[in-house]
């Protein structure tokens, strides 16, 4: 997956960086990702993509895949589990245009 689309100015990058540092903001985000995204200065397209767990849309807007992976863990959790990684699998499904899991 190429980095040709990468847009360093995309507001969602700053939000992911803040979420990695701010536990309270992270807890709010876990409860209502779209609400936190809306008040963090993200564009309507970015907010809609977060609301819909549409990682492919965020990639096409210019989000860096590495931070996209971190966003998927912020939404789906960081526990790897015993056999699969829900966050990674949801991300790859979205990038392939398959239905993203509901939560």
């Amino acid at each position: 997956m190429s980095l040709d689309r990468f847009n360093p100015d995309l507001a969602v990058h700053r939000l992911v960086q803040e979420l990695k540092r701010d536990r309270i903001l992270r807890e709010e985000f876990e409860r209502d990702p779209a609400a936190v995204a809306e008040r963090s200065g993200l564009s309507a397209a970015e907010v809609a993509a977060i609301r819909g767990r549409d990682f492919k849309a965020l990639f096409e807007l210019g989000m860096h895949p590495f931070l996209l992976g971190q966003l998927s863990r912020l939404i789906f959790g960081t526990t790897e589990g015993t056999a699969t990684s829900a966050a990674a699998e949801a991300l790859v499904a979205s990038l392939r245009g398959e239905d993203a899991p509901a939560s």
Partner: protein
Amino acid sequence: MATLEFVAAASHAPGVTGWPDKVAPATRQEMDAAYHELGRRIRASRLDLLIVICNDHGSNFPLDDHPDLAFVLSETHVGPAEWFTNWLNVHTQYSLTGAPEAGRLLFDALRADDVDLRELAGEVLFDDNLTIPTKMMGLAELGVPVLPLMHNTMIPPVPRERFCYDWGRRLRTAVETVLPAGMRVGILATGGMSHEPGGARYMLIDEEFDRRFLALVAAGDPERLLTEATYEAMEAAGAGGTAELQSWLIAAGAAGGGPAETLFYSPILEFRCGIGLVDWNVATTSPLEVAR
């Protein structure tokens, strides 16, 4: 003058500490043994300073203002950052003694017009980049002062392969000229091998590329290494992740090009990353050989 006594490279991946039980026991045993062996060699080298080249995973700089390289000048380095503790399965934070004085000397010596080199301090977020070598090689227990060097390998534009190799040579020269006489110094690059974190090929590893890269490093032919192991080739083997191997190129430059000894390689699908460890065994390499 200070001397370079150790130069090695090792992959970092969250699964190494986060979910090692998913890996076949024999592979895990061999991998653990290789990490432990590098820890043993660090101890045997009786280092006064270990420079750890960590790629920054988009945590410590704005993505629109990312330096090429940055020395972390904190008195201590605490990790992993809180959000990464579950992911890495490291719930007790470690604390490494820093090396701010050595970092400032190297920063002053290495400032140049062709590199965006910065100093970094304050609350630096460390994830698997510093945590995997620390936990797997026992760096906290060794007590050797650590100077992290954050390296941009993933936020475009990144420093290119030939620059990285050449900068490694500059780093060695700086180590040998500005650090206190008698200081024993090591360099450990962390990152790679092939992986595509967050991309459509997240679950895939390019084993052919990894084995070719290891063969090039082992051959000790820098020109061939830099001709074949380009940034584009790394990106083709896994975008946004495989180019962490550019940190290995800094180490290779500091080591004088090799050859390096491969301690371990396995394409560990459960980690979504090729895992490799190499040692340039520099203790027997004279400064004059590197200068040529």
